[in-house]
């Protein structure tokens, strides 16, 4: 059966457009629905919701600031920690490591993504939390205690625990995408660098990293999005304390964690609506973060080797 080229072109393009439109409509409906569900809370609290630090379900006073703080702090910190691990391990697997081990190493790092988030949560509670409390905290307070970041007593359940678990969880996202990106850099770039007498470091810096910069930012964006929305693992180790504290050793809360913790048992309509308001705010924050990363890509593009 042979379709005429024109027909095939039209049919195919229409199908593609339909597909994309369905996606857009579906997501749009989701956003609108959540805004609608948060109406009661929006009309009661308005923009004060964003600046208020009280979260009192009994007295029905709700404010999202501690959660916004927690979300942004854990996400950005975990991305900062995970980036070097992700990028450097991708470099090892694609450039520096032994060729035969390439596939095995790559797959092994991807296996971290295969671990369910609930297992991360349980491991975090039984293993990481005591580790932070008994081993890590004394070291941190001893050497870095002058920083407000590491002051105060610690019981393991803390922003630090959530950050560490998040960074472990997003490493495979960064690593596997970076691997694909590095592999797609034309060999000619690397050959040119070697021809000019570059050391392995310089070859990688100029011929692999520079051209892939936009791709790396894209991978980082995806990883950051995951960190912003991760629920289950964070919930078990962060303590859900609606407080803003400078110390990483104190418990905290993220928007995703309070949603998971309180949605099922929210009794009043205002409580539910406030949780949905929080979800809507998270949409906006995600959008801002995404725009920021696009802005970075646009800014770096002239400097990078264009394709």
């Amino acid at each position, binding site marked *: 059966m042979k379709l005429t080229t024109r027909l095939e072109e039209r049919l195919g393009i229409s199908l593609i457009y339909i597909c994309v439109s369905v996606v857009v409509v579906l997501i749009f409906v989701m956003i609108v629905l959540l805004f609608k569900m948060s109406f009661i809370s929006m009309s009661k609290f308005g923009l004060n919701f964003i600046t208020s630090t009280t979260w*009192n379900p009994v007295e029905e006073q709700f404010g999202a600031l501690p959660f916004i703080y927690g979300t942004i702090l854990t996400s950005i910190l975990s991305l900062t920690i995970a980036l070097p691990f992700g990028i450097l391990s991708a470099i090892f697997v694609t450039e520096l490591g032994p060729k035969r081990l390439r596939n095995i190493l790559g797959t092994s790092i991807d296996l971290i993504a295969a671990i369910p988030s609930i297992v991360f949560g349980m491991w975090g509670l039984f293993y990481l939390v005591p580790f932070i*409390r008994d081993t890590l905290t004394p070291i941190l307070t001893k050497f870095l205690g002058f920083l407000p970041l590491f002051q105060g007593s610690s019981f393991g359940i803390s922003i630090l625990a959530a950050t560490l678990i998040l960074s472990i969880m997003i490493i495979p996202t960064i690593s596997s995408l970076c691997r694909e990106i590095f592999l797609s850099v034309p060999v000619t770039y690397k050959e040119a660098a070697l021809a000019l007498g570059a050391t392995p470091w310089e070859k990688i810096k100029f011929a692999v990293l520079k051209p892939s910069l936009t791709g790396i930012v894209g991978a980082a964006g995806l990883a950051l999005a995951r960190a912003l929305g991760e629920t289950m693992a964070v919930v078990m180790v962060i303590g859900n*304390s609606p407080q803003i504290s400078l110390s990483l050793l104190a418990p905290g809360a993220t928007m995703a964690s309070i949603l998971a913790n309180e949605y099922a*048992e929210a009794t009043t309509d205002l409580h539910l609506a406030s949780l949905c308001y929080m979800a809507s705010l998270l949409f906006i924050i995600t959008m801002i973060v995404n725009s920021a990363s696009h802005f970075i890509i646009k800014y770096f593009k002239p400097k990078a080797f264009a394709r």
Partner: protein
Amino acid sequence: MNITLKIPNTIIAMLKLTLTLTIVLTYSLTINPLMGQTVAINGAGATFPYPIYIKWFSEYQKEVSNVKFNYQPMGSSGGVRQLFSQTIDFAASDVPVSVEEIKSKKLEWNILQIPTVLGSVVIVYNLNEKNVKLDGNTLSNIFKGKIKKWDDQLIASLNPGIKLPNKEILVVHRSDGSGTTEIFTNYLSMVSIDWKSSPGSGKALSWPTGIGAKGNDGISAMIKQTPGSIGYVEYAFAVNNNLSMVALKNSSGKFVTPSINAMVKAASELKNVSQISQIDIQNLDANKMNILNISGDESYPITSFTYILIPNKKQNEKIEHLKKFIRWALDNKGQKMTNALSYAPLPEELRKKFIDSI
């Protein structure tokens, strides 16, 4: 290579895909009739009674094999909300739903709330010293952060024979909303006016101090790992994790260590406090079923019932099956299975009353 030859391959691939999808769909849509006469009944609600309900369902199926009960522990409020939205057939809640709330939903039918088993919230702690005693006021002060160390005068005065260490108290509370929290804070609000004014009681609240752990299992894990910590969990968690329990002072002035017997004694006092015959199953008044801080020398003060909620729809096959099941569960046989799983059976008069009323 002639590209046009490849188009049939694509079409074949798409045909394969559609065929698979159709098979999956038809299989899935037609599978139910194969089950024949089985009635599937779905319920959701509190995590507290999950083990005993599963046990009951499994035993009940041996007698009545054509009914399958499915229960998922998503939380008391969640279960109640699902019941109102009619996505499930029955709900389970640690705290009864108020009559006003049921009326506000303007449902076409009434909701029956039937107590099934007894449980209690116990105070657990991690110290070398056993049998620490506390009373309601001191407990409230500890959880408000007003008492910061174990050897504080207020605690020591209740524990004359024990030398308490000069350790900081770490309060561990729930990070998630929970019926257990509601029962615990209801008790604290009863015994301490200070607590009642702030933070008050509810499934989730603004805790004055301490860290939050998710679930009874989270609190148990934290207490186990952290010397000097104190928290509240359901009785079964304390027993199964070998956690030290506080002997709490009841309203008769006696310090009672939690046990199944103590729960039974607390529930049996109900007949002295409310007229059991006057309890209206169709419009359950929570106050009439409240056994928190109840009188009696051997009563454990934080004991409470857990309820199954059934929509009282007329001439509905599933509701009839449910009622039959509950009569079976409230029966002696069903109630005898409670002890092994760390629950306490209902007191005799209450049991009979509810079996008759359904």
